């Protein structure tokens, strides 16, 4: 599903603009200038960060897991975390 | 240009059913094996305003799609129109004029045209067609047409009425038949 669709010539495309793959090919993680860093010890597993991530880039587990391949670093998770368990730090 | 086709013009007022009359006559002629066309004057129809409609029939297929300029006969649904418009305009020499009127045919004079009259209003009222202020005379007048012109049979007109008239089919057929019986020429 993350595969790029390879198109060579007109015969490879349908007669209209119909999708053949998913946006997972676009790795938006490269957009980040700030990165959410998780402090597990503070986490109360409330799910707030997961709930408010615009792109669903936080996966649900016992604790939240960030999908850094796609996370754009908007900082909503850190801002909304009720116990400040998430910290935005500069990307290197 | 030689003409084998037969063309009829109807005059009435918006709401009197002139267009339907043309369509019923076309339908009837079609039932007798003719190719036909029926159409209104290409305009904006308003209730009460003078309107015209046309019927064209031919034993051969009809190609022509023009309006009718020189009809073989003219049918007048509303006698008050006689004062308002030139109902004989373009009418062929020796053409026929069928008028809804209680007067005798001899009381009218339109050049060489042969005139027929029928009190279609009286007949329409008798069969309860339309309102008192606006009797629907279009089926009765077709009975008169059949008698006067003779190129479309009254039976075919009755059948066509059955097809094209939405309500009071039997009354309309009776009105046409009665008009057919009563129509008199000059």
């Amino acid at each position, binding site marked *: 599903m993350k595969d790029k669709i390879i*198109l060579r*010539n*007109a015969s490879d*495309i*349908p*007669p*209209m*603009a*119909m*999708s*053949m793959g998913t946006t997972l090919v676009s790795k938006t993680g490269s957009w980040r200038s700030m990165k959410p860093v998780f402090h597990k010890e503070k986490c109360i597993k409330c799910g707030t960060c997961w709930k408010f991530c615009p792109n669903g880039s936080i996966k649900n587990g016992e604790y939240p897991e960030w999908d850094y391949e796609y996370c754009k670093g908007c900082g909503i998770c850190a801002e909304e975390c009720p116990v400040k368990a998430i910290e935005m730090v500069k990307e290197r | *240009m030689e003409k084998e086709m037969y063309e009829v013009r109807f005059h009435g007022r918006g709401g009197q059913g002139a267009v339907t009359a*043309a*369509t019923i006559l*076309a*339908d009837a002629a*079609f039932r007798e094996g003719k*190719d*036909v*066309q*029926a*159409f*209104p004057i*290409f305009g*904006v129809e308003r209730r009460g305003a003078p309107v015209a409609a046309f019927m064209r029939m031919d034993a051969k297929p009809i*190609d*022509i*799609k*023009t*309006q009718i*300029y020189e009809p073989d006969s003219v049918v007048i649904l509303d006698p008050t129109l006689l004062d308002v418009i030139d109902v004989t305009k373009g009418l062929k020499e020796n053409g026929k004029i069928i008028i809804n009127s209680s007067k005798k045919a001899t009381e009218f004079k339109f050049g060489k045209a042969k005139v027929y009259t029928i009190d279609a209003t009286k007949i329409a009222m008798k069969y309860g067609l339309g309102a008192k202020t606006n009797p629907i005379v279009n089926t009765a007048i077709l009975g008169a047409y059949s008698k006067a012109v003779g190129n479309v049979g009254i039976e075919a007109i009755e059948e066509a009425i059955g*097809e094209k008239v939405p309500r009071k089919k039997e009354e309309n057929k009776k009105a046409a038949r009665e008009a057919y019986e009563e129509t008199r020429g000059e």
Partner: protein
Amino acid sequence: MVKKVIYGNHAVSYGARDARVEVIAAYPITPQTQVVELLSEFCASGELKAKFIKVESEHSAMAACVGASAAGARAFTATSSQGLALMHEMLHWASNARHPIVMANVNRAMGPPWNIWTDQNDSMAQRDTGWMQFYCSTNQEVYDTTLMTFKICENDKVLLPGMLSLDAFVLSHTSEVVDMPPQEEIDEFLPPYKAKYKLDLEDPRAFGSLMFPDWYYELKYKQHTSMEEALKVIEKVGKEFGDHFGRYYGLVEEYRIEDAEIILVVSGTIAQTSKDAVDVLRKEGMKAGLVRMRTFRPFPKEKIRKIASKVNKMIVIDRSISFGSEGAFFTETKACLYNEKDRPEIYGIIIGLGGRDVTVEDIMKIAKKGKEGKFKINEINWWGVKL
């Protein structure tokens, strides 16, 4: 088989009914109203099992058809003039998204001033929207073309929308005899539409998303190729229709052109009237012929080239005008002949705009004047304009 004396507008309604359309969306406009009125009755009585969306505008009519077609349904609408103009954006949408929607357009002049009578400026203005365009000249042809257009549009090699045009009043409000075959036979000719591409829960895809220059161009190439392919499909379907019902149709109708010295190129009801003119001219000794243009898009280029190769003179009569240029059929006819070695002299006539009646005498005079070479060759000739 049922033969009935019906309006041209009702021929459209019966055609749509017998094509078993599934979704209708339409907005009334003079002189198309009877089309939608009768279809409403068909839907209300259950005679036609279809959803009729009574939209608030023509733009929405076409948009609803687009949606229905995207869901895989057979969709139909009818309009005229200003309504067609309002649809313009969605006409592109329907074609670009490859929806085989069928539309009847009652050819009516564009305002202002208000004019409800016939000419082709409304449909000609939609030339480049990617719709196939067919012009009818009898009520029978209106009915038949409605059925055929679905089959042409839905062909896998075509997948484009199609518009059939009928002249305001001269067909729309004129009653003529129309022969309607039994439903079983129509169903055999036109089976239910099975969309190859559609919105599907089992195979969810996005349609019409952003497309960069890297592939948009190829998509347009494909759209054009399909339009060209339609030339063959139109002829094939016309023949198939004839084999089923005895009435054959092609891209154009050729009338007495075998030995013609002068050929009239005409569309719509004027073409039908022109047949009478040709007959009389022939009786008078002039070898006149007629090509009735049924198809405008795709333009039947090869057909025209073949016909033109045998004559010295052609007169193209247009009931539309591209201001500052000329009539649409005139332009296209000349354009497809330019590189031919032996091309005839071609005159362009504008006639009958806004419903001005065109008579047999008009056509005869035009043919005679053309034969004598008295028309301007590099300009259009306005026939019957009061100067």
